[in-house]
């Protein structure tokens, strides 16, 4: 039989991110990916960690205007994931250890993977 991946996802609040990640780091886990899923209301971020062959994820949802703390102080290797998510999804990740300032991907549009709908003030021109 094929061994299916055991899906362990712990839902947390964004404010608990750093303490939870610190606890995992102390227990020997390492970061193996950061994933973002965008919707009209905001973004869902999943931080996956590996220890031997086990994998578990921390997950939270953030509104577009909410800042997310970087975990690069705990896992410097997370800088690439965080830069990517900020470039493609527009998530406000603050204090990234190695900040590429939006230059990871040279894409034609701004935040191409974002589905966040922001209704802003009508422009002075009055039309599209």
């Amino acid at each position, binding site marked *: *039989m094929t061994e299916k991946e055991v899906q362990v996802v712990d839902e947390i609040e964004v404010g608990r991110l750093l303490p939870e990640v610190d606890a995992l780091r102390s227990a020997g886990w390492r970061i*193996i*990916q950061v994933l973002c*899923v965008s919707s009209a209301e905001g973004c869902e971020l*999943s931080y*996956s960690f590996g220890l031997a062959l086990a994998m578990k994820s921390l997950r939270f949802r953030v509104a577009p205007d909410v800042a997310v703390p970087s975990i690069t102080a705990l896992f*410097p290797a997370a800088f690439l994931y965080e830069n990517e998510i900020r470039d493609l999804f527009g998530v406000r990740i603050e204090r990234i250890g190695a900040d590429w300032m939006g230059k990871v991907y040279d894409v034609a549009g701004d935040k191409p*993977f974002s589905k966040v709908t922001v209704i802003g003030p009508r422009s002075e021109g009055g039309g599209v």
Partner: protein
Amino acid sequence: MSTREDTRREDTRREDTRREDTRPDHARESNIDGTSIIPFGPQHPVLPEPLHFDLFLRDEKVVGAIPQIGYIHRGLELLVEKRDYTDYVHVAERICGICSFMHGMGYCEAVEGMLGLSVPDRGRWLRTFWCELERAHSHLMWMGLAADAFGFESLFMAAWRARELVIDVAEETAGGRVIFGSAIVGGVSRDPSDETLARCMKALKPARDDIRKLSRVMLQDSTVKHRLEGVGVLSRERAYELGAVGPMLRASGYDYDVRRRGYAAYGEIPFETVVEESGDCMARAAVRIREIEQSFAIMEKVVAGMPAGPVSVPVKGMPPVGECFARLEQPRGEVIYYVKSNGSRNLERFRVRTPTFANVPAMVEAMRGSSLADVPTIILTIDPCISCTER
């Protein structure tokens, strides 16, 4: 008592302090002073695909590096929202031309996990056969590129000649030389006969003999050793901390191979994880070379024990609302797939964390302390795949 010369020096120092620091953020934060910055790539003779580094040099020694990707990002992940979930496997296969089958299979494994599908035994064993065939041809391609990088042209050509036989087997069994096209949700689309598989294993014998000879050259030739031994050393602890995967991690003495999870038929086929201890370019070369022979050995076991029966199960209807992670061991290391469904025929999200993406921080670490002339060799022994990274 201060002299006029002292006053002038103090003014100069203050002026230097006021002058705007135009170095990149990383250089300022890393306190890399007195360095030269040499751009490496995105176009470079050793790089088949675009990748850029700002190398910080003190004399000839690399003291830091800032990687830059994103030159050919294709947005394939986003395409999952516009394609039927069973058809998207063809897009997933085209993420990369070297590990195409495993990308297609990884997507299928994730979707099958979400659907709760079980692939028939013969389908699982055929997937294992093609995975190992792909690993062998990928490592042979790497061997050629690495030999080319340090100027060993005849080794480069001999490695690629052996690879050609491996690709012939892919064509005969799967139908495609680059894009195998045989992975489908629910199993595989091709069912080569047991006789065909046995004939293919015989056809691979000359390649295996050649590879043993080439391996001796790669691991024992004094000129190769001169370029690879003690170069680009990555310690076991740093490899783990920096998230390294695949041969990059195993060459630093860490026993980690996702095949041990037992996906496809790996749970039923005994094999040893290939591990080296020294963490240098030679160790990374040795891991890949030993894995080529291991792949052929696994293929032999697969062909010998191939179960009879169907190779796929039908997949109908809409996927349920849900999500699934799947992990495979690609030639370059662990790859993570994620799919999320909203109940329609188009998935809401597909994500691939490719091994090269995970190896970038470790690659930068391995460069630190090396000489400029060794940078191409270090990059090649990581075996970067930019197509995967720029999915």
